[in-house]
């Protein structure tokens, strides 16, 4: 589904990603861990098409196509979803309005009829139950005045409604209390499917207790320095990132020359 080859990207003239290689197949869940500032969000953003990071070399194939050639909304319509580390507020725009516009834009692209207000509400209310969200949230402005945890849940609600092919969740677990974490994990697990892949960016093993990944990757200094199965996350939890750096594949080596 996704093949990333030797991907380099910079913000301004500062290199952030320094040769990422990663292959993700349909049905798989990949966890990406790594210290603050290592480039996890940048990678997520580059995949979603955000323009503040520039790809300097490398390639990304998504469903056999050149992903980097597509505009942000085209990627979204072809099934790429990013749950934001810092969800965005849009004053005055109703949550339900945004969701409906987004879903219908995507349906239109796929040649499906647009959902009318009634069908749409039925669908959303169903998904809200799953996320254990209060219906009143639908009628508030997008994320405005939402608590940190509510914002994160709202992201997953959007994902549940849009049913993407490749979901990238950037630290969706940060800022969630224990109960909310379970609810979010439930929501994510219910979306696990043969034809759907997910990238979970996280700092904590805890999330991976609920959502079992197939692979865990460690990103340091803009490069994947270690990949393994779920057990890798446990080791990281115990030993921290220094352990990996000390093995000689760490930061010093991949830091760009200035």
């Amino acid at each position, binding site marked *: 589904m996704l093949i990333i080859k030797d991907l380099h990207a910079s913000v301004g003239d500062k290199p952030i990603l320094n040769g990422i290689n990663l292959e993700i197949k349909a049905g798989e869940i990949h966890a990406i861990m790594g210290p603050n500032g290592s480039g996890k969000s940048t990678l997520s953003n580059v995949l*979603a*098409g*955000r*323009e*503040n990071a520039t790809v300097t070399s490398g390639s990304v194939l998504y469903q056999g196509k050149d992903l980097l050639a597509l*505009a*942000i*909304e085209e*990627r*979204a*319509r072809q099934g790429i*979803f*990013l749950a*934001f580390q810092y*969800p*965005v*507020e*849009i*004053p*005055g*725009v109703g949550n339900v*309005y*945004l969701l409906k*516009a*987004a*879903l219908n*834009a*995507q349906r239109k*692209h796929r040649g499906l009829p647009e959902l009318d207000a009634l069908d749409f509400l039925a669908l959303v209310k169903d998904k809200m139950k799953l996320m254990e969200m209060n219906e009143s949230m639908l009628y508030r*402005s997008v994320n405005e005045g939402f608590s940190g945890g509510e914002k994160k849940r709202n992201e997953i609600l*959007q994902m549940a409604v*849009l049913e993407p092919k490749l979901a990238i969740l950037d630290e969706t677990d940060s800022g969630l209390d224990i109960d909310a974490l379970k609810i979010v994990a439930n929501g994510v697990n219910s979306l696990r499917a043969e034809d759907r892949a997910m990238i979970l960016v996280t700092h904590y093993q805890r999330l991976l207790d609920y959502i079992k990944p197939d692979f865990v990757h460690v990103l340091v200094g803009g490069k994947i320095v270690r990949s393994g199965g779920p057990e890798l996350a446990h080791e990281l939890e115990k030993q921290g990132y220094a352990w990996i750096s000390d093995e000689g594949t760490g930061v010093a080596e991949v830091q760009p020359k200035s």
Partner: protein
Amino acid sequence: MNNTTSTLEGIISQEYQHGFETLVEADALPRGLSEDTVRVISAKKNEPEFLLEWRLSAYRRWLEMTPPEWASVHYPPIDYQDIIYYSAPKSQKDGPKSLDEVDPELLKTYEKLGIPLHERAILAGVAVDAVFDSVSVATTFKDKLAEKGIIFCSFSEAVQHHPELVRQYLGSVVPVQDNFYAALNSAVFSDGSFVYIPPGVRCPMELSTYFRINAKNTGQFERTLIIADRDAYVSYLEGCTAPMRDENQLHAAVVELVALENAQIKYSTVQNWYPGDKEGRGGIYNFVTKRGDCRGAHSKISWTQVETGSAITWKYPSVILRGDHSVGEFYSVALTNHRQQADTGTKMIHMGKNTRSTVVSKGISAGYGHQAYRGLVRIARAASGARNYTQCDSLLLGDKCAAHTFPYIEVKNASAKVEHEASTSRIGEDQLFFCRQRGLSAEDAVSMIVNGFCKEVFKELPMEFAVEAQKLLGVSLEGSVG
């Protein structure tokens, strides 16, 4: 200087080469303005003597006045002798002969707004034999209104059938010498709307110019007068979302509202006149004087406006809070794109005790758009307990546009409370990215964010109007991202 751009003496001494009588019969007057022009207009409309005198006094005041220069708008000087001040209604001789002659951008806009084909030609000013669906609707409405004693007609009709009301209220809110454009309008106004709601009557429907027969071609000097008598209520809608093309570049309208004791007037405008092409060529100059007078205690006047059209807008719908406990409101969305310029705002003049006013202004600039909010809040010495709240937000799209805020606050009574909040923001890159990541096109995303920004104003508009206004904003912003 040629003889059409005249000096003051030139204007005064100028006389028609053709006789007065032939002019009254002609379809249109020759270009130029003189005392005779005013007389001919008045005679053509068969006006009573008082009105002719009133027009003439306005004309004489106008001669002594100069166009205001304080507004932050720029345009070449207007040659007032190069304007035709009267032409018979529905004369479309100078208009485009077919849709092929109309700015293709304008046609695209009609399409996007979903305007029916047969209406597009009318709006673009093409000469067509149109049958308005609205005519029959209007007649039914008129009967219903007449039952309640409501007068809703063209200004000319009002002059013929209700001269006493016209005489009593005309110019009582905006005096002839108020400003250059108001004086000009008073001298040569063509037509407009007249509304009178009798005491205790709540007008059962939104009154809209659209439903008034003969609302087309009211000309460039429109005059509107609305009176809500004691305990009356009326909601009035002006304009439509379709961009109107007009041969006349200069528009100088005057709107006067009078609310007597405990009466309420809600006046909503959607103005989308032709803004000119991308370079600003051919757009309309909209120099309007709109003012409401809360004459009675506990009266209320609300202005709500969505301004997206015109090349230049100069407009300050205001409220004089004369009656004790009266309330004035101003909710405004103004959008400037491409080369549009707008200098708009409001004046809240507190004279009565415990008067309250609210101002919410949302300005959006895109392209090379240039806009200024200019707001005056004046609390007179006698206006104890007066309160004003002003919120003035600007949203910028791109880095070539500009927004300025000029608040003027004059407080002469120590018990007054005046609050002013202002903000300027750029549309957030993160908001745009977020919306597009969810599958919306960049244009839809901008339109959604901008509509969110304007929500406080839109919710003041009557429902259908609000929906149209949202769509309009989206269309007006197209091409402003990327």
